[in-house]
């Protein structure tokens, strides 16, 4: 497992994407995400908004790389932030998660 993979833990092998049960809109660089089943509104910060935009099923390691290059933070910090953020999104029902098919 790569260094980033270790930092992301079990999330590194998951397909994580925006839930189909959400609606969102980005204004002035901040995303407003509505989870329609819970009828809850979440306003994300700048980094959170970028991660949200990237949650299209790509590997979280790739998202960490993007955050490192766009926000000039080190890999450890970015991986920790992405992991915590994805955990929060999962807890409020904003992302859908499934295990990736393992490579033989």
């Amino acid at each position, binding site marked *: 497992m790569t260094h980033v993979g270790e930092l992301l833990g079990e999330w590194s092998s998951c397909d994580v994407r925006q839930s189909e*049960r959400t*609606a*969102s*809109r980005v*204004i*002035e660089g901040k995303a407003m995400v509505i989870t*329609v089943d819970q009828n809850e*509104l979440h306003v994300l910060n700048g980094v959170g908004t970028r991660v949200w935009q990237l949650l299209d099923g790509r590997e979280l390691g790739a998202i960490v790389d993007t955050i490192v290059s766009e926000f000039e933070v080190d890999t450890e910090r970015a991986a920790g932030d992405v992991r915590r953020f994805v955990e929060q999104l999962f807890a409020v029902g904003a992302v859908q998660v499934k295990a990736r098919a393992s490579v033989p």
Partner: protein
Amino acid sequence: VRWSWQGAECRVETPSGRAVLAQHARAASGNAELGSVPGSLEALLTGVAAALSYRRGGAVLHAAGVELEGGVVAFIGPSGAGKSTAARQLASARLFAVDRMALEPRGAGWLACSLPGGTSEPHDGVRSTELVLPLCAVLRVRQSPRGAEVVAVSRGKALALLRAAVFQGTRDPADEARLLESLESLASSVPLGELHFGLGSELEPVLAAWSSWSGVR
């Protein structure tokens, strides 16, 4: 209150009433069943208004409103925030809506339509005789021990405040996305701020000062 459109047909459900609406080219028709529980009619009218307003690019807001110089100032905020208190403290204004109003775009601006419902708290001031008027401002109210002031909010905050004030009805993500788009258009065409005030604050001069720079008529 729940509603959902399937093509040109909409079902509106409330705890003690339901309606089926059909949208035609320039009109809507419908059938309603209404229970006898107090408040049934107001709830069903709110649901029907929310479904039809949505279809016309608008929404129903949980808001108190006053008529001031021919337009409506809407006060939003959660229950207990001071919406009706603010409405009462504007001595020169007429009460337009106690608890809820339908908003819809019209030309470059928005119209406010008073809806029945909410607490029947006595209002000793004068009531507006109008049911539909141009919407001239939306204010999120907050009671504060300091003097009264209006604080500007960012566009993102404005959208979040408006969304929190909408009578939620749909659980369809596509409807929700269109609702956000409508509310963003509302936030960009009608001045929106936060009104901080305390009991006894004189609101007229504060609103007059705010309106002079925010572009409120």
